[in-house]
């Protein structure tokens, strides 16, 4: 869960924006980040077009082909009830990407308003939100997610909610910190001086300026959320069988590791590649958006 560590606030550009290439160009100029984007795009395409790409039904059993090694008919082999591992890996991308993106959206939709409120309002509101954030941060990420998923009941939707809530405190802290840094800037003081109401200043003047660090953190949080979903599914608290998810495939695979190792290899490689790619893009974004690294 190290990827959830807070990213330092990004300083305002020292040179005029026009003199510097577009952040997207700077991102794509970094080979590691560009490779990450390509891999993510491949997984997104696999998830979206899964019914067209997958050679077999991911939940269709075939007891005549139980635990068959990789072959021309089944590139990644078959599992303990004859399901095609490649088809399940392709459909499994849906659960991982959905969980990664939606849980981070949950974190953002709670964390950013709470952080803005704490940073902009200050006083008792800030104190209350900050103490709540500290309390949530005191529970290790995955243990809190497990506890939440346990009380909510095991399902992919509940796993996403659990991961989203567990990842929220980092966004509250980051938004609060950057808001505090931005609120005393001249343009915010000017907006206040001409009589803008606080909500308008927070939304139109503060928020756009804290987007870059949030974007970096969100990308790294997706990587952590993908691992968290796989972990919860591995424990049986995420996607429920027979629907495919990489984590639950690994849970079954560990029981057959001595005679059907292929069942464990591909789901794990997929998690690794997807998480690595989000980490590479997150690191690349940080460098591309931070003028000190350009």
């Amino acid at each position, binding site marked *: 869960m190290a990827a959830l560590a807070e990213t330092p606030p990004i300083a305002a550009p020292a040179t005029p924006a026009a003199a510097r290439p577009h952040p997207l160009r700077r991102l794509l100029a970094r080979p590691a980040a560009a490779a990450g984007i390509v891999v993510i795009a491949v997984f997104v395409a696999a998830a979206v077009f899964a019914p067209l790409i997958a050679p077999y039904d991911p939940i269709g059993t075939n007891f005549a082909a139980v635990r068959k090694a990789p072959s021309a008919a089944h590139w990644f082999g078959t599992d303990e009830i004859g399901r095609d591992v490649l088809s399940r890996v392709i459909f499994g991308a849906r659960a991982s990407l959905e969980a990664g993106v939606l849980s981070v959206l949950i974190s953002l939709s709670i964390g950013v308003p709470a952080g803005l409120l704490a940073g902009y309002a200050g006083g008792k509101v800030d104190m209350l939100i900050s103490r709540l954030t500290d*309390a949530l941060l005191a*529970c*290790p990420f995955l243990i809190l997610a497990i506890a939440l998923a346990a009380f909510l*009941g095991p399902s992919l939707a509940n796993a996403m909610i659990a991961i989203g809530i567990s990842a929220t405190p980092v966004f509250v802290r980051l938004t609060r910190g950057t808001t505090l840094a931005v609120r005393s800037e001249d343009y915010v003081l000017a907006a206040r001086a001409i009589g803008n109401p606080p909500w308008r200043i927070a939304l139109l003047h503060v928020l756009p300026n804290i987007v870059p660090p949030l974007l970096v953190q969100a990308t790294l949080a997706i990587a952590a959320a993908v691992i968290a979903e796989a972990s919860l599914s591995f424990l049986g608290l995420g996607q429920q069988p027979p629907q495919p998810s990489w984590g639950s495939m690994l849970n079954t695979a560990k029981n057959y590791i*001595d005679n059907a190792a292929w069942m464990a290899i591909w789901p794990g490689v997929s998690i*690794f590649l997807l998480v690595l790619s989000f980490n590479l893009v997150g690191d690349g974004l940080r460098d591309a958006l931070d003028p000190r690294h350009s």
Partner: protein
Amino acid sequence: MTAYLVRRIATIVPTLVFASILIFALQQLLPGDPAMVLAGEERDPAVIAHLRETLHLDQPFPVRYLYWVRGVVHGDLGESLRMQQPVRTLIAEKLPVTLELACIAIVIALAIGIPAGVVSAVRRGSGWDYGANVVALWGLSTPNFWLGIMLILLFSVTLGWLPASGYVSPFDDWRANLAAMIMPAFVLGNAIAAVLMRHTRSAMLQVLSSDYVRTARAKGVRERDVILKHALRNALIPIITLGALEFGTLLSGAVLTEQVFTIPGFGKLIVDAVFNRDFAVVQGVVLFTATAYIVLNLVADILYAVANPRMRVG
């Protein structure tokens, strides 16, 4: 220093109070009547009545919370419905196993992370630096339960060198204990090694560009001594305190690692409790973990202040 200590200890009180409220409030997430859910599938009326009484379910939430906190303050974390034992006893039984696993994991993480970070900083921009960064990225991106399965495939199934699962107490047979613990500890230490490597690298880079390192070099001190005695010794202060904060990663990782290697520790306790719908154990374990994390944070902060007087401003 005393004033700093008092002030710092006082700040953990509200965090503990809020954390306990949040953890107690988890119960509110249970759909329907908590007594019915907690009683499990048997729905024994006697158990339901007992639960209503002991959990004060007829009282409003704040009153129930106060009853619960009163118990917690007196060391009563509730009782496991499935195992008919106090949660405190269960934690005390399982914790030493996880602590042993965690200690070996930390040793492995330090042994890999710090030298890799030092080499990476000293040879910045070289192949070593690149290699260490690749290893760190690998450590951060590999799901540890998958790494565990792959190690079992290599060292247990293919080579037959190490047992695939199980636990032997070190007091019964320390060799068998070490053989059973080395793979899970490596899996657990792997991710932390990556974090430590990154911290060490940035701390070393900062220290290596400082005036006293330049002075040491100008005096003609051997490069090896400059790095180990002057730079690393100072860089270690933030690394060790940051390392203490990796406790959460360690416990989260232990949950999965213990599941893969069937180690009867703290992590397996919470997973088993989740599947047995033994919610008192889940709450007790989360509360214990949060408290331990808050206290460790405090200890890390105090150690930092002891090592670096400038930080005492607080």
